[in-house]
């Protein structure tokens, strides 16, 4: 749908500011009520979902130009989806889709942060957004004895993702992820150098055609590889495969799982036994792309009509996506299964979790913003007495670690896969 | 005298008094305000009279001193601050205009006293919200215009209570009705549609009622007011709680108000209690030591299942008291709680209970919070010693207000007016002592007499603001000049 199609939503925004906060009924601690990193950082109302709905209307009405200042308003946002959850609790609006359409419009007009152009350029040339060489894509798996699909076959494809493929500091985590599956006797392989980007980050940046290209290619790769299941340790890739590809109509024909879902299965089937005590005080950060953004896409076709005079309804009825059906329980069950761990929830969790700060190209284009967002999350982790902040997404881990180092914070950052590996 | 004829035309000759003896009665009171004789006394009968008087005063530049209560007076606010003033005595405006049981409100003229109001309300199934043993001649309207606290903190939601709307003739001679009484329509038209002049805020975005409260008649003359009442209790039980140490009593007040129990709730020291009931303090045997403290508390049931209400609240209150090592008593040696209740439910014995011990009295009172009151009590004893006032004569009354968020702390200083050293001691306590207490944080929200010298903020912002208001409502400055900051 084009931006114009959401004009009525824009006009029906009432500027209640709920998009800035955790759903009120779920609020627990007065220090941690915000859900929108953008407004917390930049403060002006334009930096909220409501503000961007208003910006969209202003653009449609030609009250403002799509210039650098407007671009920053649009892009100083991780597209974490928190605003969408909070808004939809009370309203039938689609602020996230409006913000996404704004980005598509920016790309159409060529008004994007220059850093994003580099990402997309890299994607086109090297099938990754990090400016790395395709040739180095599989270096992370050296020495693991992994099956390389194409020449070999397997039921399960382990898709590492760009971040895990190229970030040397995250290498141990991705290797642990594959090892866990291999050691559990799973028939799993990797695409190696043939693996390409999921395209998800590019989509969020507004480059929908590029993402569509990735989707087509991945679907073909998987078909050719004959895999039945794609498992990934990257929350971003998971969300792209599971949700975005479905959204744009790309049918892959495979089961998509995040590694936490897969690992939980293995634990439940007894194929993995976490028996070693890990005496750590931990809390869990729900990655946006594993959580609220990973809720399955709901396709709907029908008519918007009015009943009882002016009440806006859908025919047929349309289910709303609240972010509730993301992957929340699997990571938690895993943590509960690891002996010795003391697990405490943070105040903002599940579909109303605070973002790590790095999403949607913010880490690339607005690094201070990414860092400050992460620091607030680390502060929240400390507030519940945790020594370790556990996540299940490479970008979350990277951003938290960078922030901790830069700010001298002693909070340890683990990926859940690392804890599992330690426990088995 | 110039002007008398004009006044006589407005309100009738019989209502303009210039007899020297009468003037002398109005020239002074029990305060230490310098006696200044008014030039005449006028006694209006109705709003039109009052408006005529105020307009005349504007034309002639005559200061007006509104007085609604009969004697004795104590605060100096009714003593002319300058010569040539005309006292507007509203004490004969005694109409109880309307009692509204459904909305628990009464509309009365300024001369109505508690003694007159109580039986009238009773007939309609209502009871007033009483102040602490007011004198028989005390105007109900003035009590609440001056923000005198009521003895039932649960009904005291905020400082304006229980005053609702008023009709006022401002110092500029214009008539105004405040709050929801402003309109639209006349009072009769409002009554016809069921409106009852019970919302004192406003109208609109200025709180005109509030601008008159605490003003000591410096903004205008109120000609009627609506006052919130309470349903007449069907069942009532009263209690006394004694303690040598006031701290647990204060804690008990916090707990009672937190659980929203009961109705009347106040603390006195033994000296004050004795004066209230008109006995010598030695006839009331309580605990040894000084000072002894008494908390008075009542529970009323008025509507549905009143006995049930009293029963469960009594049980809860006893439990709260016992947690603090206290007991709710219905009787002490020498005093029954219900007798005290009867005393506090009516106006004072004439002329006034505070004059009975020694013939004269001055009060020092201000707002604070219950937990802060102790330090003021301690300081008061120090000041008494400094100025040579016998501490055993200090009557202390602590009234929780605003549902327990604040309290009105009052020291009553009985003295013999003929005893100069004694009177001087009291004068020093009231003036210099008051300043010390203000310096410690006592909020003199009702700054009578010399208190206005220290009650205002040092930056003068309240003064500036109030003078701006004065400029609007009384541009010629005829209303009670010399009071407050005017």
């Amino acid at each position, binding site marked *: 749908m084009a931006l114009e199609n959401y004009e009525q939503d824009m006009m029906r925004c009432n500027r209640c500011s709920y998009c800035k906060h955790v759903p009120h009924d779920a609020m627990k601690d007065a220090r941690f009520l915000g859900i929108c990193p953008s407004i917390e950082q930049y403060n002006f109302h334009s930096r909220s979902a409501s503000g961007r709905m208003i910006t969209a209307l202003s653009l449609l009405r030609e009250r403002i130009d799509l210039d650098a200042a407007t671009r920053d308003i649009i892009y100083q946002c991780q597209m974490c989806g928190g605003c969408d959850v909070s808004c939809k609790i009370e309203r039938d609006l689609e602020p996230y889709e409006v913000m996404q359409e704004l980005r598509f419009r920016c790309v159409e007009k060529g008004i994007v942060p220059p850093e994003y152009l580099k990402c997309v350029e890299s994607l086109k040339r090297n099938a990754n957004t990090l400016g790395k060489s395709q040739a180095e894509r599989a270096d992370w798996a050296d020495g693991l004895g992994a099956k390389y699909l194409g020449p070999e076959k397997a039921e399960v494809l382990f898709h590492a993702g760009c971040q895990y493929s190229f970030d040397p500091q995250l290498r141990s985590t991705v290797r642990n992820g594959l090892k866990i599956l291999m050691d559990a006797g799973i028939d799993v392989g990797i695409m190696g150098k043939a693996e390409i980007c999921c395209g998800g980050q590019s989509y969020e940046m507004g480059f929908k055609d590029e993402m569509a290209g990735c989707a087509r290619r991945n679907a073909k790769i998987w078909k050719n590889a004959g895999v039945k299941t794609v498992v990934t340790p990257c929350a971003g890739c998971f969300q792209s495969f599971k949700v975005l590809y479905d959204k744009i109509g790309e049918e892959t024909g495979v089961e998509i799982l995040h590694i936490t879902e897969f690992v939980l299965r293995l634990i439940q089937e007894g194929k993995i036994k976490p028996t070693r005590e890990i005496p750590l005080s931990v809390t869990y950060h729900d990655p946006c792309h594993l959580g609220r953004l990973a809720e399955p896409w709901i396709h709907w076709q029908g008519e918007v009509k009015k009943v009882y005079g002016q009440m806006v309804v859908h025919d047929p009825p349309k289910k709303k996506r609240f972010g509730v059906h993301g992957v929340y329980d699997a990571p938690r069950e895993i943590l509960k299964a690891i002996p010795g761990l003391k697990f405490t929830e943070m105040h903002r969790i599940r579909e109303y979790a605070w973002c790590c700060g790095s999403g949607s190209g913010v880490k690339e284009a607005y690094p201070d913003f990414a860092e400050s967002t992460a620091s607030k999350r680390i502060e929240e982790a400390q507030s519940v007495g945790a020594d370790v902040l556990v996540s299940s997404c490479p970008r979350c881990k990277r951003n938290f670690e960078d922030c901790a180092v830069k700010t001298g914070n002693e909070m340890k950052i683990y990926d859940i896969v690392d804890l599992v590996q330690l426990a088995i | 005298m110039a002007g008398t004829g004009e006044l006589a035309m407005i309100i009738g000759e019989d209502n303009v008094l210039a007899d020297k003896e009468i003037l002398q009665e109005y020239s002074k009171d029990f305060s230490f305000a310098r006696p200044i004789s008014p030039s005449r006394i006028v006694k209006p009968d109705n709003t039109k009279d009052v408006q005529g008087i105020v307009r005349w005063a504007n034309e002639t530049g005559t200061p007006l001193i509104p007085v609604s209560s009969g004697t004795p007076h104590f605060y100096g606010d009714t003593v002319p601050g300058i010569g040539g003033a005309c006292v507007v005595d509203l004490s004969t405006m005694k109409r109880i205009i309307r009692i509204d049981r459904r909305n628990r409100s009464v509309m009365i003229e300024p001369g109505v006293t508690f003694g007159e109001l109580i039986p009238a309300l009773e007939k309609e199934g209502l009871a007033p919200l009483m102040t602490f043993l007011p004198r028989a001649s005390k105007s109900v309207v003035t009590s609440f215009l001056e923000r005198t606290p009521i003895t039932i903190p649960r009904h005291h939601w905020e400082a304006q209570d229980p005053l609702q709307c008023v009709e006022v003739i401002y110092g500029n001679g214009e008539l105004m009705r405040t709050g929801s009484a402003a309109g639209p329509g006349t009072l009769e038209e409002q009554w016809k549609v069921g409106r009852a002049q019970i919302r004192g805020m406003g109208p609109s975005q200025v709180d005109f009622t509030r601008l008159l409260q605490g003003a000591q008649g410096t903004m205008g003359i109120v000609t009627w007011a609506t006052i919130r009442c309470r349903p007449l209790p069907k069942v009532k039980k009263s209690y006394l709680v004694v303690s040598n140490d006031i701290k647990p009593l204060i804690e008990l007040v*916090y707990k009672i108000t937190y659980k929203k129990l009961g109705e009347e709730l106040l603390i006195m020291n033994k000296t004050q209690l004795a004066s209230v009931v008109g006995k010598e303090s030695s006839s009331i045997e309580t605990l040894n030591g000084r000072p002894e403290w008494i908390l008075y508390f009542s529970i009323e049931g008025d509507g549905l299942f009143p006995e049930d209400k009293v029963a469960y609240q009594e049980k809860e209150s006893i439990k709260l008291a016992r947690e603090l090592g206290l007991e709710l008593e219905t009787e002490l040696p020498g005093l029954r709680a219900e007798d005290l209740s009867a005393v506090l439910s009516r106006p004072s014995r004439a002329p006034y209970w505070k004059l009975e011990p020694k013939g004269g009295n001055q009060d020092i009172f201000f707002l604070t919070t219950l937990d802060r009151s102790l330090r003021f009590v301690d300081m008061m004893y120090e000041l008494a010693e400094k100025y040579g006032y016998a501490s055993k004569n200090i009557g202390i009354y602590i009234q929780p207000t605003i549902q327990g968020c604040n309290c009105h702390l009052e020291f009553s200083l009985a003295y013999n007016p003929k005893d100069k050293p004694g009177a001087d001691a009291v004068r020093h306590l009231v003036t210099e002592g008051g300043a010390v207490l203000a310096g410690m944080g006592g909020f003199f929200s009702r700054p009578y007499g010399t208190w206005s010298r220290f009650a205002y903020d040092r930056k003068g912002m309240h003064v500036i603001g109030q003078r701006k208001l004065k400029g609007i409502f009384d541009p010629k400055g005829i209303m009670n000049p010399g009071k407050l900051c005017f």
Partner: protein
Amino acid sequence: MTISNKAYKALEDIVGPEYITMEPADLDSYCFVWGNELLYGDKFSPRPPAVIMPENTQEVQAIVKTCNRFGLKYRAHASGFEVAALSAEKPFIPIDLRRMNHIVEIDAKNRIAVIEPYVSQVKLFLETRKLGLRPNMMSSGPSSSVMAGTAAHFGSGASNISTDYGSRNLLGVEWVLPDGDIIRLGSLGCSGEWINADGPGPSLRGVLRGYGGANGGNGVFTKIATKVYPWYGPAEPKLTGKGPLYQNEVPENFEMYALFFPSVDTINDFNQLLYEASIAYHFQRFPVGIIPAMATESNDEFYALIQSIPQEMLDAIGPHGATVALDASSKEEMAYKQKVFNKILEMTQAQQVPMDESQKGALFNHVLNGGGVLKAAFRPTGSFMITAIGDEAMDPMGVLGTKAWDTIVSDLHDSGAVFNASPHTSWAITYGEGSGHVESLVQYDPASPESVQKTVAALEKADHMVAEMGLGINSLENALSYCESALKAAMPHNTLDFVTYMKMIKRTFDPNNSSEPAFYVSPDEWE
């Protein structure tokens, strides 16, 4: 209004470049709020020349003084959730108080909380409940600013029966006057303590606001003290449900009811009896359809639910509904309250609407923090507005809702220009001091020109209706006034004097007319 470079620089020097903007895209988010289309014929009211965001009182004062110096108009807001916060016929500089969001102190003993402007009622409740306390809860929702409800705007809500009207809880103010001086009202200025805002002498709190607040037209409030009330529930929220219909565990010592009555007289009687019994924690009069609205995820679900209810049942329930919550600090207290309550139900022919757990949970959330109001008021059509408003004795307020329906709203319903599933959509509450407040609501679609147009016509009719029937002075009371001449025409002569005095006060306290008065009173003489 334009802003010169010099003026902009002067303002920028106060807050730093990060906290002031002239970017059109930023500015447009400060002239857009629900209701604009009714007042200005457009979603956008005139664009401000700049927006500024101070951090503390000193910065606010400096901003106000600078605006006075340069002849600029300003108006402060907290959440900015209403036209009274953000909109005007002519541009002004919005002062966004978002950064002033601290709870300064909570005196639990004396039940007084001191807060900055951006503190929301849900935030304050989260902190006070740990101490066994709660603030007044406006029914404008949990994100509403406590200060707006207490000092600056309006404070009505369903908790008022136990927490009184918002402004009557004001115990202190730090106030930057329109010309930039600072007054600390009452005890704060005199003894330095946050105890009481009235005095010494005549209370300037009466200038600060009346029944309605000044809506930014009278300077800026930078801190207030508000009374807080006993809370007998748990110290921390206990979330039991999952999103989107989050549920908070209903404590044992709370009971909730949804009721309907056969007539306006019986609900009026109920109102009086409930008030006099002093047993309620929460009370509002509203068609009980509010509860399904709050307990559904979407309009689609709400529509399906309404469709599933037989018409006979809807007719039987009728328009006279109420929700009530009781709380108690002990079992004995609850036993007494329930006995009284049941008797009142019997005396007033009240019927209870059965609620399933999800609906009870939704109602409890609403009781706790005003939540769900957007679902009920905004979600159906996109927006709502109040036509007739009344504030006085409870009985005529009960009648006002019916009269508004009969004379204005029913036609609007019949025209299909507003949401018309539920007749008599008026909402009423009762204050602790015994008076009542009623709003007759219409839900219109801001994206539909016809819906907007017909709603505007209804607003104008309502101004006249309320004054002509002698039931009040409608929107001028509650500061939704935007056109003085229209209101003058709506009011009979003998209610005009207060406006003259208000103008004199405005001129006296704001000689430069710097504090933008679109929802206060202009200093200009009546035409």
